[in-house]
């Protein structure tokens, strides 16, 4: 361990969902509510899919796209919303602006406003996260790999997914940042950053990370 190596402290996050009570039964209503929604609502529906229990791998990567596909049955809109990457933007406010633009443009070309059947309304929600230290600290890559086997899914989610957006200046996940800052290891960092977590479950992300580290060590 080099003198300047900083310890990696694992944190855990417990997320409790908080519905706003607002529901949209057609695309116009959806857009209106979206325009008035707080950032935390947009954040939840676009970024926190991985932590929600009903996520099925292979589906669209965010709540808005899933609703457009399966309830509104507007596949073109679902595709646009799925391919839109909220991580390309610095702030949630910018994300919201872009999102509204996509929906407005899409609606412009529609002959009628699409509705959902009763019971399939989009239910807006936000979430509260409690972040607490897990009590697992590592200072070498070997220890780090070992820790990856024992941390809960929620900790993996926090460091690999949510952490990218909690601090605005951050562009990458906590793991690759720690490795880059303390060990260099450009190739290892590149492989970790190449994991497109939109398309994998937390279980699969964990396995990928461990495999990459195993190759390295």
């Amino acid at each position, binding site marked *: 361990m080099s003198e300047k190596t900083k310890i990696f402290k694992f944190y855990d996050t417990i997320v409790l969902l908080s519905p706003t009570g607002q529901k949209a039964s057609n695309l116009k209503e959806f857009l209106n509510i979206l325009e008035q929604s707080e950032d935390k609502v947009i954040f939840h529906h676009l970024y926190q899919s991985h932590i929600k229990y009903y996520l099925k791998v292979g589906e669209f990567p965010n709540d808005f796209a899933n609703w457009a596909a399966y309830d509104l049955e507007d596949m073109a809109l679902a595709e646009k919303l799925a391919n839109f990457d909220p991580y390309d933007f610095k702030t949630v406010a910018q994300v919201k602006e872009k999102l509204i633009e996509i929906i407005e443009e899409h609606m412009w070309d529609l002959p009628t406003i699409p509705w959902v059947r009763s019971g399939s309304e989009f239910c807006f929600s936000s979430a*509260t996260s409690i972040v607490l230290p897990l009590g697992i600290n590592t200072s070498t890559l070997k220890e780090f790999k070992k820790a990856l086997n024992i941390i809960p899914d929620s900790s993996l989610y926090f460091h690999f997914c949510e952490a990218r957006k909690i601090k605005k200046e951050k562009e990458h996940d906590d793991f690759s940042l720690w490795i880059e800052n303390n060990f260099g290891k450009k190739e290892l960092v590149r492989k970790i950053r190449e994991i497109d977590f939109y398309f994998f479950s937390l279980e699969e992300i964990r396995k990928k990370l461990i495999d990459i580290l195993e190759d390295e060590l």
Partner: protein
Amino acid sequence: MAILKDYEDIVGKKNLNQLKSLALLSKGKKVIMVNSTKDGGGVAEILHRLVPLLNELGINCQWKTIYGNNGFFNITKDIHNSLQGKKLDIKNELLEKYLKVNKEYAQNVNLDADIVIIHDPQPLPLIKYYPRNNTKWVWRCHIDISKPDLFLWKFLKKYVEMYDASIFSISKFAKSLPYPQYLIAPSIDPLSNKNRDLSKNEIENVLDTYRIKKDKPIILQVSRFDKFKDPLGVIKAYRLVKKEINCKLILAGGTASDDPEGEEIFKEVKNESKGDPDIHILFLKSKSDIVINALQRSADVIIQKSIKEGFGLVVTESMWKEKAVIGGEVGGITIQLYNHLNGFLVNSIEGAAFRVRYLLNRPDVSEDLGKQAKKFVTKNFLITRHLRDYLALFYILENPNKNIIYA
């Protein structure tokens, strides 16, 4: 009774450690749960396990039930049904009586605590009659109130709005309310008599007791005898299946002390099934957990053809036993079952019959769906996840208006 450590083999050490860390944040906090019965129904079942486990984790949690006679529970059953959308025009004098029972109970009970959690509508108005102090009051609504009867909702909303927060099982049930609402799905206890593994002998004993032969495929619905569970619809679906496949149907259900309607519906169902020796109607007394467990494990296909449902824990129990379940596309069943992934959702008698036929013809698919179902429940609907959500809620209530709380 199982202690926390007993769950390690099922959910893993990391999940138990998470609970312990989270519990430290609210150690010693006094929490009182109030509902209307200790006997029968999903809420009582959950509290029987949740309360001792919260205490084991260092939370001072007590459970109290509002007293009431049959008259009171007749009214609250109507309130329950109206909240689920049935138009009943409950008379004002009955609503007055409902408030009176709550008022009397509030005068005789000690609810001084850090957090009071009121379950369902029966004790909802207590908040009006109990002196306000620093206690956080939370209304935990287990039922489907997405389309309540408007008159009744206007009447109850006054009381709902007095709370500091509400909890719903799924986001569709959330309302426009002046305070935070949270989502906490209910759960089952994998180690209870209703869900633990049973020996072959235990299962056979139950089938012998009820004179059920395993000589043809068994279709099962376990639920209270309640219109919203559509037992008559299940019989009709069975009759459609029976035209194609020789099978039998078991309708097994109990009743709860706060549900006076059960016996009447039971008679109706019994009448409808007359003359068919392949229909078994079992009226189960409370504490029939091993019987339910054995029936679920013996069934070839399990139905929960509800037309309204808060969550549908009986679906969860069946999924836990690796069964392919066919559920009505309503309420909390929709966040448990996904077509072709871990079961089926249906919207009609014909739909239920079609899926039963499919599963009876395709035991290979049925087995795969059952395996996925168990995995899904293990991850999302066991008591340990429920404990986690409650512990999170206790801490969040102490830190309002924050999206991220660094502990």
